[in-house]
């Protein structure tokens, strides 16, 4: 059995990849995938700790996170579709109407 650190390292790597993706990419769909990546890295950490401590709580949290993620994607994709219909583009850098 792998030591706990291995899981945590993998989780941290995935999280960092996700975070970088969110920051550098312009396509919101890619950004979404990156966010998914971050969420799942957290899930990985949860499961690893649950296993380590022999408790079920962490695994339950994972389910919550997955549910929330699904809802978030649904709302997000709906937004993207609407935005696309309105502006015929989903390039994030062109969506700056909130500029003060």
């Amino acid at each position, binding site marked *: 059995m792998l030591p706990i650190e291995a899981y945590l390292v993998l989780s941290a790597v995935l999280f960092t990849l996700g975070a970088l993706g969110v920051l550098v990419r312009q396509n919101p769909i890619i950004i979404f995938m990156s966010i998914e990546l971050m969420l799942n890295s957290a899930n990985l950490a949860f499961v690893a700790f649950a296993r380590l401590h022999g408790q079920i709580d962490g695994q339950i949290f994972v389910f919550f996170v997955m549910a929330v993620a699904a809802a978030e994607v649904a709302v997000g994709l709906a937004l993207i579709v609407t935005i696309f219909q309105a502006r015929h583009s989903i390039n994030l850098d062109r969506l700056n109407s909130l500029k*003060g």
Partner: protein
Amino acid sequence: MLFEEISSSAPQFFSLAPLIVFFPIIGLLINTFFGGKILQSGPAGEKIVGWIASAAAGLAFVVSVLLAISLINYHDGMKVPLVEWIHIDALKLNWAFQVDTLSVTMMLVVSGVGTLIHIYAIGYMHEDVRHHGDPSRFRRFFVFMNLFIAAMMILVSSDNYLMLFVGWEGVGLCSFLLIGFWYDKGEGGIANAMAAKKAFVTNRIGDFGFLLAAFIMFTSFRSLDFDIVFGRVVEVNAIYPGAIFAITAFMLLGVAGKSAQIPLYVWLPDAMAGPTPVSALIHAATMVTAGVYLVARSSALYVAAPEAQALVALTGAATALFAATIAIAQFDIKKVLAYSTISQLGFMVAAVGMGAFAAGIFHLVTHAFFKALLFLSAGSVIQGLERGHHHLEHDPKLKKLVKQEHHFDPQDMRNMGGLRTKMKTTYIVYMVGTLALAGLFPFAGFWSKDEILAEAAHLNPTAYGLLTAAAFMTAFYMGRQIWMVFFGKPRSPAAEHAQESPPVMTIPLIILAILSALGGFMNLPFKGFHQFSHWLEQTSENFHAGEFVLSVALLSTALALLAIAVSWWLYMRRAAKLEALPAAKRPDDPLRQILGPLFTWMNNKWYIDELYWAAILNRYVDLARFLADYVDWRFWHDWVHDRLLVKGYNLLSRLLSVHIDLGGIDAFANGLASTTQRLAASLRRLQTGFVRNYALSIFLGVVIIIGYLVLR
């Protein structure tokens, strides 16, 4: 009332009593809902609608006869309760029918005369529709007539004052509807509607008196039931002295309204705007006698209040004379009869006022016969003239005779004359009615009027004097009418071509004529007779038979003959002489030549209507306008509310906003706002609008926080 008594074998039909109301109601419902279809179904439709209504009235008459038969064996009569009405606290009122000799007498008159008039009206309304078009009015007429019979039956058969009042106002409504039956006719198209309104409102003034009487009665007697009230008269008179006087005096106001007595008689002459059968049934034979019935029914109360009795007797007697003076100088055939009705009602009211209750009711019955007869015959005369006029207008040869410039009035007696050869049946029955009304032996009016005069002679000499004078005038104006209408030469082309009415109209006339001629024999004032008085005595001991006083009878007969002779001299001899004068100088009435301006006053009804308008009605209109326009609208609505409150508040708020708010508070608030604005302007530069910028800052923030937590 007494069920044990009803065990004997003689038949009794008391439980049928409610049917006297239900039959007419069924009739009117049938005609309301199906009458329109029936009328459209064909030429027989009119007859069917008319006969349904007549049958409804006729069935009510049959029931009344059955009730009368029952009463022969069960003198005390019976109360037939139908259903509870208002039960609150001590107030316990039922829909219940009081069957006794007095109420059954009224029922017989109402339904009997009513049925005859319904039948007559079938012919009359047929003519009306023929002359004026609009066939739907046929149904409307008979619906209202049935409604009237129902309401009148409620009035006469109730066992308490409030149910009586239902009928009392119900007949008032029917009177309103039927006076205004030709609601688009009359002067300016609105006169008939105005007359209807006048009748209703005047009656309401009387009803106000009735209501107050009911209030006082309930507070002193704790009941409105006839039996209970009459049973407690002595007791109440001891506890509340004056209460009974107040009740009876206020009731007199109601009587004056319904029975057209001074000072509320003014509506009845105008009521002649209605179709003639209505004038006969409602405004002569039945409804207007309701006041007499009320006093007679309340005899126990009136006997206990002698002052009220005197008041009633004098009101009646004064009305009798006063109305007779007006009747002398009218030209409209129906107006003469209308004032005659007021005068005769005065006789009845005077009679019941001085305690001659039986005589009053007796006169009520005979008057119903002969006055209905007179009105219906007058209607026949009018339609005869209209037929003549119609004939002229549509006959090319005769057309030139019709004066185009002025409207032909078929009710004006100056357009009549010589009708006795043109309308034979009408002439004969009219003569019977006239003789009965004038009080000549042996017609019905002689017996009943003489009974009143004989009673008055010893009960109330003032009233006796007034009534005798009125009786003289009665004979005079009836004589005048006869000479003007039926004798002499025709005074208009229409009168020359007048035609007799159809049998459906003349047969009821003949029946009524027979009743008018012989009706007096039901109460001959001799020992061993007095059947009618004894019949009424079964209801209350206050109805006692009158004495026959030969001197009174001779005097009144002599006066009547004299009056007719005078009228003959004036309207036959003198009028013939006046014919010779050129038309411009010829007076329209020989009496005018003698009386001069007095005649004009009498012709204009002593200007009482004008007085009422000037003194009361216009004042009320002014008051209402003043209250509505000035007090309520300009002062209260516009000034107090719109100006004082709204404008005042606006002023206050402007004061607050300009000086206090803008000067003080606002300046402070503005300072606060501009500072905030400046701060915001510098901060807004941070808002780039790029999502990833925000994400980056969030990230950095998180990193900083975590870094702090870790490195702390």
